[in-house]
């Protein structure tokens, strides 16, 4: 069974509802911006204005409702990419700070934050990558995209993160997801995706990864669960914690290297094939 989690771009009914209610709130109440986390602010008002393209400012109350609602929806139907995205954005606010701070410690990570490269089929030049020799990272990456019949353009944009830089960090995190598959060799099955979430949890500590890691397996068959916990999870925890922080990697510049070299330099062993 193969599942592609992040493909949906249709705005959900819930999101449209949110847009309407925030517009209503804005028009009826005075603005109350906060300079620091600890200034008292009403739970019914969004703390900032629109900070970037696609930003939907929501109040703390809306955020709480969205977090709970999207959690249940995503658990019931993991194919709802927009719900998974919403869950990630409403719960990961504080931890995106941590990823960004880790990126600030690394020269390559700082370059990414400064230049903010975007990954689309255009910027990746997929046709050029297809011409690369077999066994190079770029060739295997495009092979993976073609097999799954997906493209890097189908990611859900970021809506609910109240900071331009952190929204970019979230977007980069999503966009680099396909590279993680190519790097680790994990299949795009449900248990493969969950294994990758365990890997990311070991790396980043994002709560969304923890939610997927702990609740996702509930949906698996017992055989798949066994494979997950006996093979994939130990591998994921070991490699996730010892490898270089993948958010600091400028994937665009590693395309011509052989996959083994990339794995070696980043400190990741390919996952066991079962």
């Amino acid at each position: 069974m193969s599942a592609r989690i992040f493909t949906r771009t249709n705005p959900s009914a819930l999101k449209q509802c949110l847009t309407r209610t925030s517009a209503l709130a804005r028009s009826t109440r005075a603005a109350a911006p906060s300079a620091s986390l600890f200034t008292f602010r009403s739970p019914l008002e969004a703390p900032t204005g629109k900070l970037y393209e696609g930003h939907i400012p929501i109040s703390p109350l809306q955020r709480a409702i969205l977090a709970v609602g999207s959690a249940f929806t995503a658990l019931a139907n993991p194919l709802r990419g927009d719900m998974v995205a919403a869950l990630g954005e409403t719960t990961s606010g504080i931890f995106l700070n941590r990823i960004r701070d880790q990126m600030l410690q690394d020269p390559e990570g700082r370059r990414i934050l400064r230049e903010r490269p975007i990954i689309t089929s255009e910027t990746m030049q997929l046709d050029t990558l297809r011409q690369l020799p077999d066994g190079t990272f770029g060739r295997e990456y495009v092979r993976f995209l073609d097999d799954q019949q997906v493209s890097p353009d189908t990611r859900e944009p970021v809506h609910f993160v109240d900071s331009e830089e952190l929204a970019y960090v979230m977007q980069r995190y999503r966009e680099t997801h396909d590279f993680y598959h190519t790097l680790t060799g994990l299949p795009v099955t449900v248990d493969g995706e969950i294994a990758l979430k365990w890997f990311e949890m070991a790396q980043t500590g994002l709560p969304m990864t923890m939610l997927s890691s702990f609740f996702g397996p509930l949906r698996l068959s017992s055989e798949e669960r066994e494979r997950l916990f006996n093979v994939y999870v130990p591998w994921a925890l070991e490699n996730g914690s010892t490898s270089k922080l993948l958010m600091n990697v400028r994937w665009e510049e590693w395309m011509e290297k052989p996959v083994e070299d990339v794995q070696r330099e980043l400190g990741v062993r390919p996952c066991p094939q079962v």
Partner: protein
Amino acid sequence: MAAIRFQSTEATKAATTTEEYDVVIVGGGIAGSALACALASAKASGTLKVALIEAFDLSNHINFSPRPDQYSNRVSSLTPKSVAFLKKIGVWSELDLSRVAACEGMQVWDGVSGARITFDAANVDGVQSSFLHQVFSGNVPTPPGVNNNTNQETLDSSNKEASPLAWMTENLHVQYGLQKQIVGHQARGIKLDVFEKTKVQGITTGQGESAQLPKGDWPAVQLDNGKTLVTRLLVGADGVNSPVRSFAKIESLGWDYSQFGLVATLQIDPSTSTAPGQGRGIAWQRFLPTGPIAMLPLNNGYASLVWSTTPKIAQDLKKLPARDFCALVNAAFSASPAELEYLYKNIGPDGQPLVDFQKEIEWRTGVRDAEMSQTMVRGSSSSQGDDKPPRVVDVQENTRAPFPLRMRNSSSYVEDRVVLVGDAAHTVHPLAGQGLNQGLADVECLTRVIETSLLSGSDIGNIHSLTPYSSERFLPNLAMLGTVDKLSKLYNTDFGPVVWARSLGLTAVDKMGPIKNEIMRFAMGLEEPSNRT
């Protein structure tokens, strides 16, 4: 009591001259010199024969004649209580007030969360004694906010001029005032002998039978100039490693902080501060996880820096080129701890930065400012953001100096014929600017106690005469040490739940006027007026 012998550089067996004194003060620092002045200026104690011993040359104190564009890097904040004492002993009038800066306000904030508390001298209630002081002095306290002073005149006159929170001036400047007073007293005929450039070689006391002879139990101080001073009362004002304290076998309890304090004299551009009045007279302190960084106001566009941080960072900061050092200090007041971590890591072993500090800091400042302005686009007029301290434009050459930070308290301040004042008795973290003030409070109290003993005909060196000093000073000093220590530990972490709790607490206290008032008055040392004769 035991004897301590130090290594003597001269094997002198020649007949040593012995002189008798009533009080011998070991240590000519601010505490020791202030005690000498205070004793000389009081009526009864002015008849005592006092000696002041100092190992270093005091001439650079009495010859203090600095340029208006240079400030020494050892600057202290003097509370109103300390200033009142200095006025009383005639030192304040000797000072050049153009080199004394009034601190009218303080802004203190959390480097991780941004939670802030602001103190303004104008809000301090001038009349009533601090509740906490009343508690520690053993009086029946009146609750904060209740004004039971029925003297209307006192009320009106005290509130007319709000006192600054503190005055900032160089330690050398205060030393200068003290030495001038000492010379003045000597000229008046007061028996005050100063032994400068003189080291103490040993302190002994009579043992066994000789202790039974008259004055046999008096401490004898052997100086390296061959003299021996025998004294009724020995005062240890000789700093944190006090030999007098060791002689008296008094234990010093406490710990070393894994932090060094780096001081420096900064040149600032007041026009860059967003605080009212361009931040003149405002002290700024930001708590970083590595330790607090503080900028204390001086006059004429200068400021004093006290940055408590890890030993490695303190040493690196000293070696950095001036331009990068100033950029880093500015960043330390605004950038996130993660951003600062990156910069600390990129200081080479010779002190040269491994990356372009200016560029990196500019980039991060740009990102931060963009987010701030976006956040305020929706805002009403109240959204000014937090006040910013003035930008540092230069650092005075050779003023960057690190020193280790520690907390110490002696198990006792008094022994038979021995008393400790100042750093010899207690050492505190500099984050609250209290150390010197505690020392001056000790001196003021001891002078009073000695006066009282004299007037009642007691032996000033007898431990029973000295106990009132210990009772009065021990608990307040301990309380201050403990509070400052807990604050230092509370802010030494960036662990999420602790940050959240302390920020919530700080923000809450910032909104509670009466409590802030109490804190300010406690820190300023304000007490009930004329509580004592």
